């Protein structure tokens, strides 16, 4: 068959298929008519056969590049493994996310360890009056805090009208810090650990100052209600950064590049999953922390958030024990 006949014979098929592809691009696959939906697979296979035939019999013609274009375009619209939808998002938060945290708990523990140790270190540095304490907590902040003590203020009184602004500013800051925590994992973890330790030191030093001023209870009641979800989210992002770092430092049987690809997606998912936790933390920090209620009530609230988060992560482990491997869906590459 010469190419003229070949084109004449099949041109309608190609035009129709191209129309279907255009429609998928513009209005989505769901808008296809029943008949089109039924035909799209067979049409695609027929066109791949045409491409193979054209490649063999009419090489280097514009028909081959036309058919190749059709096949390539269709391939990237027809072959997909996962689509994002509200349902998959719900599924992710109900099952996939806790399961991910449980699965990569070693990293979460390590990141938390960095945080906790650096809190202790910061407190100790400040307590022992080490000259390094200046690096942890600049003198200006120290003086500002001390002056507030002298005036009898402890920072619990944010003006009511400013609360929403305060809350959203904190949120933007926290999410940015978290992203850096994650992305800096690519510096073989140095950047991630730096951010974790810096935040831990700051917290530890502040806690020691407050404890020294006999304000320990007050301080923890200010920090913990939002601090527990916030620190948890930071630890998660630290874990995600460490996962990326781990892939680079110790790729195992893979090349560094392949190990990075394997770990990057679950790491990003953990990081993205932590965003609602940060949102909650910021809301608490803006609206609950500054409330004028007894510190004990705030601590009870803090314990409550802790228990809630603990249960959430625990639910991930129980899913695994039941052997529901398929909930790993969102993790699959």
């Amino acid at each position, binding site marked *: 068959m*010469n190419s003229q006949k070949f084109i004449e014979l099949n041109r309608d098929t190609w*035009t129709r298929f191209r129309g279907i592809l255009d429609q998928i691009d513009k209005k989505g696959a769901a808008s296809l008519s029943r008949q089109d939906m039924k035909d799209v697979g067979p049409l695609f296979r027929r066109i791949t056969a045409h491409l193979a035939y054209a490649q063999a019999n009419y090489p280097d013609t514009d028909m081959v590049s036309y058919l190749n*274009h059709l096949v390539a375009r269709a391939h990237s619209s027809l072959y997909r493994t996962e689509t994002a939808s509200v349902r998959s998002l719900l599924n992710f938060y109900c099952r996939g996310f806790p399961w991910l945290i449980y699965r990569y708990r070693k990293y979460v523990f390590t990141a938390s360890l960095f945080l906790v140790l650096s809190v202790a270190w910061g407190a100790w540095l400040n307590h022992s009056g080490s000259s390094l304490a200046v690096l942890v907590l600049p003198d200006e902040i120290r003086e500002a805090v001390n002056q507030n003590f002298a005036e009898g203020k402890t920072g619990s009184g944010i003006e009511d009208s400013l609360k929403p*602004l305060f809350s959203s500013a904190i949120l933007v800051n926290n999410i940015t810090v978290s992203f850096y925590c994650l992305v800096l994992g690519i510096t073989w973890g140095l950047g991630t650990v730096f951010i974790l330790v810096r935040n831990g030191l700051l917290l530890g030093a502040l806690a020691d100052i407050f404890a020294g001023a006999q304000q320990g209870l007050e301080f923890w009641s200010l920090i913990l209600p939002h601090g527990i979800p916030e620190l948890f989210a930071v630890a998660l992002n630290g874990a995600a950064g460490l996962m990326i770092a781990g892939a680079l430092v110790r790729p195992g049987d893979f090349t560094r590049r392949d190990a990075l690809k394997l770990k990057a997606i679950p790491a990003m998912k953990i990081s*993205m999953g932590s965003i609602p936790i940060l949102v909650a933390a910021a809301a608490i920090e803006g609206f609950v922390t500054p409330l004028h209620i007894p510190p004990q009530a705030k601590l009870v609230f803090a314990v409550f958030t802790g228990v809630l988060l603990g249960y959430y992560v625990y639910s991930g482990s129980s899913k695994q024990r039941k052997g529901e491997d398929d909930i790993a869906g969102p993790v699959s590459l």
Partner: protein
Amino acid sequence: MQDLSLYSSEKIYYSYRLSGLGSRFIGLLLDTLILGVVYLVLGGFTAAMVGVFGDMLSETLIIVLVAVVLILYFLVSFGYFIFFETLWNGQTPGKRAAGLRVVRKTGEAVTFGNVLVRNLMRIVDALPAGNAAGMIAILFSENCQRVGDMAADTVVVREKNTDEPVLIESFSVDQEMAERLRPAIHLVDERDFNLIRDFFARMSGLRPEAADTVAEKIARGLAGKLGLAKGETINPVAFIKTVGALYREK
């Protein structure tokens, strides 16, 4: 211009045309312009609200407004690429206008995970300034990938619509010449026919003198192939038409 050749599950080879630095720059430029307009509208809206209704609104409301705008700004700047690349199967408005699409290196559609990874990694690609890391990576990596693409295992391909293959209409044929050529027509192959078809498809766009020169060249080659005696005078265009028509009927 670089191609990525793939072997599909239908057992055929097909290829994507990878997009280089230039076309990706155009896509990014368009997206940046769109984002800029959104920021302007957001900022302008806030300023206008505060400016016009400032007296009527309570202070709390203004602050709430600013807080909401701050969050919106953040959502837009991080979410724009993620949102569109997920919803439009690897395209953003800028990419669509520039004829680009993000696909997985295996030729499949991108997943939400891929989109997330490649767009969060923009932070790395932007290092140290002016997207330098990303540009260097695109120039020197095997498949024109930036760092985000490597981590997400995606490539950016060009998706310019190619024209449908042309058909040549039936020609009025010089019967006498046709009878003479018919026995030798099997010597003309698909490559020659493709040349003839391309010539007639483009002839209308050529200057007449140029068209004549090209026609003469093609006719000379065909005449040699068909074994016409040298020195025979023929009208090149009519000759090519005859050969084309004969091959077409074959």
